């Protein structure tokens, strides 16, 4: 009996693990090479003394023997309702690697991924796993500000440096952010800009004076709606309600009824896809909110919002980086994207991820030292310093310079309007018939 029981349980466990692994085909494919990468660590350790190179770096060096790949890791949200956000950025990194020909100074570039699930706990778990892999040179990520809040201390203390393409919470790059953030930079804009742009859009362009906000408890949404509220009040408007729900809530009608009682003209919910979809789908069902103008932000700038939100998404406003203000060759990037993946971009931060990866490679190019036998040495502190020293870097999103507190982005925000609620019509970079379409500024 006991034997059979054990056999049954192990079959169940094994089967569910297998299924879990094939669940996400895309990340699994890139994760597969992670196994050899992990075993390479001891090899590197024995290789180091042979080489003539002496590591004088304050927080250690990564040594890449001939034939070994240069290991870059991407961490972000690759499962759940927000997976488009992470997948979109991951594609930006992959295109950047393709542009390098898949090689860095003769070594293959290996990209592995770690799912952080868009939560602080997921970020902490992913960071802990990444921190134990001594072959990793640099990181791109995370997707959600929550993930960074959960994981950055672990990464910084392991000597790693990460560049996030899509974290926008203002405090992550504030000058007083603390030493745990020494290994953190971003190419995304800070929401100090985004919240202000949306407030100006609402007050000056839509001419509304009474606004309400709703957030999902994530650090991103909480901070962004507060920036919006402060800026909106500064412009002369009134905030009539600021509500919040849990990230796994599905029934939004009660909270929307409470908001309706405050009689707003404009509701701003800069949340993630799950809550964004439910709110949009249910908002017109609530008495008093039938005609309220609705807006979200870059967290839900994805066709997935149209899937969850349905017909009500038509006419909704979304703020996002202004694609038309990108000074680099964005059209060229889109062409590569279409050739590689087909279809349209999934979310808004692919170009930021491409720039982040290229900043990492440029910094790597400055600090990597090649030995006579072809071993590559990278000082971790030197790499970090080189990334911070990035100045006038010609990226797609603009000419980028990193501030001492890790802000590398060129923040130009636009507000887009969703023209069609059919997810298949989503194509913000379409020349003639874009959906969503830029309407402000």
């Amino acid at each position, binding site marked *: 009996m006991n034997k059979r029981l054990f056999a049954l349980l192990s079959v169940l466990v094994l089967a569910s693990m297998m299924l879990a692994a094939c669940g996400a085909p895309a990340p699994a494919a890139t994760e597969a090479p992670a196994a050899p990468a992990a075993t390479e660590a001891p090899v590197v350790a024995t290789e180091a003394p042979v080489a003539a190179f002496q590591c004088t770096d304050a927080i250690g060096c990564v040594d890449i023997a001939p034939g070994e790949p240069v290991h870059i890791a991407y961490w972000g949200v690759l499962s759940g309702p927000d997976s488009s956000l992470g997948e979109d950025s991951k594609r930006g990194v992959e295109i950047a690697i393709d542009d390098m020909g898949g090689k860095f100074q003769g070594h293959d570039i290996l990209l592995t991924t770690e799912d952080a699930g868009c939560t602080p706990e997921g970020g902490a778990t992913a960071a802990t796993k990444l921190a134990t892999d001594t072959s990793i040179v640099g990181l791109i990520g995370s997707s959600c500000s929550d993930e960074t809040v959960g994981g950055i201390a672990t990464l910084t203390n392991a000597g790693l440096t990460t560049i996030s393409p899509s974290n926008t919470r203002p405090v992550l790059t504030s000058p007083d952010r603390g030493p745990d953030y020494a290994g953190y930079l971003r190419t995304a804009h800070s929401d100090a800009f985004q919240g202000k742009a949306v407030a100006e859009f609402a007050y000056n362009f839509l001419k509304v004076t009474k606004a309400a906000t709703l957030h999902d*408890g994530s650090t991103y949404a909480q901070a962004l709606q507060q920036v919006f509220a402060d800026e909106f009040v500064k412009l002369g408007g009134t905030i009539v309600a600021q509500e*919040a729900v849990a990230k796994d809530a599905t029934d939004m009608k009660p909270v929307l009824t409470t908001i309706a009682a405050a009689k707003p003209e404009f509701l701003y919910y800069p949340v993630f896809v799950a809550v964004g979809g439910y709110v949009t789908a249910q908002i017109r069902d609530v008495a008093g909110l039938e005609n309220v103008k609705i807006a979200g932000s870059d967290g839900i700038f994805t066709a997935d919002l149209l899937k969850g939100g349905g017909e009500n998404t038509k006419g909704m406003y979304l703020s996002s980086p202004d694609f038309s203000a990108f000074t680099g060759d964005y059209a060229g990037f889109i062409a590569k994207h279409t050739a590689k993946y087909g279809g349209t971009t999934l979310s808004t931060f692919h170009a930021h991820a491409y720039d982040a990866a290229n900043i990492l490679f440029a910094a790597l190019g400055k600090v990597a030292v090649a030995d006579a036998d072809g071993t590559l040495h990278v000082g971790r502190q030197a790499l970090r310093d080189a990334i911070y020293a990035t100045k006038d870097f010609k990226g797609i999103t603009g000419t980028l310079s990193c501030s001492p507190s890790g802000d590398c982005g060129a923040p130009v925000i636009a507000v887009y309007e969703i023209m069609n609620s059919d*997810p298949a019509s989503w194509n913000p970079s379409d020349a003639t018939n874009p959906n969503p379409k830029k309407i402000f500024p």
Partner: protein
Amino acid sequence: MRTSFGERLLDLAVNGFLWGFRILIVVIVVLGTFLTIRAGKYTSEQWIDFVVFGISQGSIYALIALGYTMVYGILRMINFAHGEIFMSGAFGGYFIATWLTGIGFMDKYPVFGLIISMMFGMLVSTLIALLVERIAYRPLRGAPRLVPLISAIGASFFLQYTFRGFFGPGVYAYPSMKALDGEWIFFGIGILKVQIVVTIAAVVMMSILYSIVMFTKIGKAMRAVSENKDVAALMGIDVNRIIVTTFALGAAMAGAAGVLYALTYRQVNFFTGFTPGIKAFTAAVLGGIGNIPGAMVGGLVLGIVESVGPALFLDSIGIPRPYQLKDAIAYIMLVMILLFRPSGILGERVSKKA
């Protein structure tokens, strides 16, 4: 029996804490209700809306809770995979509803379309529940009670990741039914059509189930097995068949609930079953686990408290963002009910049966 002074002191402290907790919660509820009603922020239509939202959510909880409570009544085990059975019903309904919408059937015959979708969702749920019962529970029938519980958790993960494997991690948007858009007006109060349909469908399903259990031969057999398996077997009842029937009935309810839930919220993904599953389990315990009317009452009470609670209790006593505490309200209510009435709202006193 004599107890030491220290033990008595500890007892006193624990009791004191529990009473303090009860009093605190009651004070918050009464004060919050009083202040909210005096503040007059909401119109009476809005209060009715809150209750209606609660009833439609609660009737879905009730349908799911039935499965927990029936299985517990018969096997004394918690079927933690029940949330996933619910999710599989929602998926089944999704595929048939999308297909029906695609061929235009749904717009022409919305009532039949809805019934077919629900039937199909129930069928999928039932099949999966029977498989789970056969593979994960029946071989463990004689094992200690913890063993099937762990197996149930394993089955739950297995089903989640199976669906994730087949259908990916993203969300599927349920087709919107034109016939369910808009409101019906009752006595000057508009109520969403979809909520009325969901509530009526749930009530019908529950009445069918209740009649089966109370007035048919197989229902009698189920009640007999739930009272005492061994004696029931001696009376010539095929216990295994009754257990399978119970699983099938519970799963059918969950499948119907899955389709209704997806109709209300218009999306489904592999993780859909988790939160409603936990909530429905709460509802089953709330109503008195093992008791069928209890599950219905528990579901409705939970739905209504979740919907009304944040606005009624917390809004006016200065608690910011009360809707983030929706789950806290639900679970505190569970604790309160269990403190005052350990067997749940309708639960009979636990008998001293072995």
